[in-house]
């Protein structure tokens, strides 16, 4: 794993920051330079709310080597209040009891680690409310 790729400043990953198009209101998460809806390049930075609901999910039972120690784990697509959707693990849950439509809260967690003595990588996960 390349340390710089994971330890650089990533405001969207660490602070849930998004770009809101000043012309049409589209919210880009992560931020973009061009609005896919109206092509404007004029954005303001906003902080997303940390509550949302599960639109779809799966339970990963066979993962890449990096995540194999965490299996089984749940990953879902969560829609936040602003309508922004993101892919996130759903933590602290009995994976067999998850359902589409459940309400979740976004929290800050460790996502992966690079082997025994490697760097720790942080980011957001969802937990049921």
């Amino acid at each position: 794993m390349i340390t710089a790729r994971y330890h650089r400043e990533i405001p969207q990953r660490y602070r849930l920051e998004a770009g809101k198009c000043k012309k049409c209101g589209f919210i880009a998460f992560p931020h973009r330079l061009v609005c896919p809806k109206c092509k404007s390049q004029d954005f303001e930075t906003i902080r997303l709310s940390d509550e949302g609901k599960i639109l779809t999910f799966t339970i990963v039972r066979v993962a890449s080597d990096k995540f194999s120690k965490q299996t089984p784990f749940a990953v879902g697509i969560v829609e936040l209040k602003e309508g922004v959707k993101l892919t996130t693990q759903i933590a602290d849950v009995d994976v067999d009891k998850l359902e589409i439509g459940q309400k979740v809260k976004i929290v800050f967690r460790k996502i992966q680690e690079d082997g025994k003595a490697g760097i720790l990588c942080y980011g957001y996960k969802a937990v049921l409310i």
Partner: protein
Amino acid sequence: MRDVVVIGAGMTKFGELWDKSIKDIFVEASLKAIKDSGVDHIDSIYVGAMSSGLFVGQEHLGAILADYLGMNPVPATRVESACASGGAAFRQAYLEVASGASEIVLAGGVEKMNDGADVTEVLATAADQEYEVYQGITFPGLYAMIAKAHMHQYGTTREQLAAVAVKNHRNGSKNKNAQFGFEVTPEQVMKSTMVSDPLRLLDCSPVTDGGAAVIVASMDVAKKLNKNFVRVIASAQASDTIALHSRESFTTLNSVVKAAEKAYRMAGIKPTDLNLCEVHDCFTIAEIVVSEDLGFFEKGKGGEAVLNGLTSIESGKIPINTSGGLKSKGHPVGATGIAQIIELFEQLNGKAGGRQVKNARIGMAQNMGGSGASSVIHILEVK
């Protein structure tokens, strides 16, 4: 643009080819295609490969393959659009001949996936690395989320997913090049190891080594050679957001819808005019969603259709994946799009043996990359 035809095809057996390098695999398929076509030279080469760099540590595939094919100084370029690399390479060959820039172009595809790489991680590079894969999602996982949404929205069932695998294995059992050319039962599919709920091992296409190549030429060349040929009557491609979560719907693949609209318009035909279709069944749910997005069935009815046999070879409605599809034939990622064209070439020439669709005249190949961020569609016709 002028008429473009396919005049020859060749492929390796798909499977775990431990005794062959990526060069051996590509050259074997290409030599077969050249021999089949009867041409004595080619003007250029396009090769589709998704991730030779991560699978075997080799980039610059165009050059290395032209070299080992003994074809220097013919121009050769690798084309990459994830799992749609083969279809995209074919499209480049089509465009080069259609434009008049070349007369004879080799369009190939190759992937050597069994060489020690973490295949799950390599395939995941076709998704958004920072906003999907970082969370631990895999490709089976992404399609599982599509399946979950489709089941929730339309009532698609586990039995319907299994019916895709059962049909494709039945077709693949009649294909000598198939990696897993044996039949499976619905029970076997539904009891196989869970990979990513609700998708099980037998819902997933396998990890495969393989190569495929076709010779694309102008009508003038085909007439001079007096060979069997099929005409390319549509070539279309479309894109969608790289991340599944960025889309308005998880149960429709917009790149497939858009590419299909263009392809039908270009060919001047309707979905009901097709006699067969090779679709990108990387997972069972993908075939169901795509069969709806191509206009064969109403949205949400794809699962019911496959369970009721409407997509079998004998159905008469629309035979899908007569080759066995990615599921049974195998999915050497970059070669898949070309292998689909080869199935159409054989079917339209009446040479598909035990899996022949009667009176097949028009066929479609639908190849896609990632969770649908790229889709390439071709329609071929025999007169």
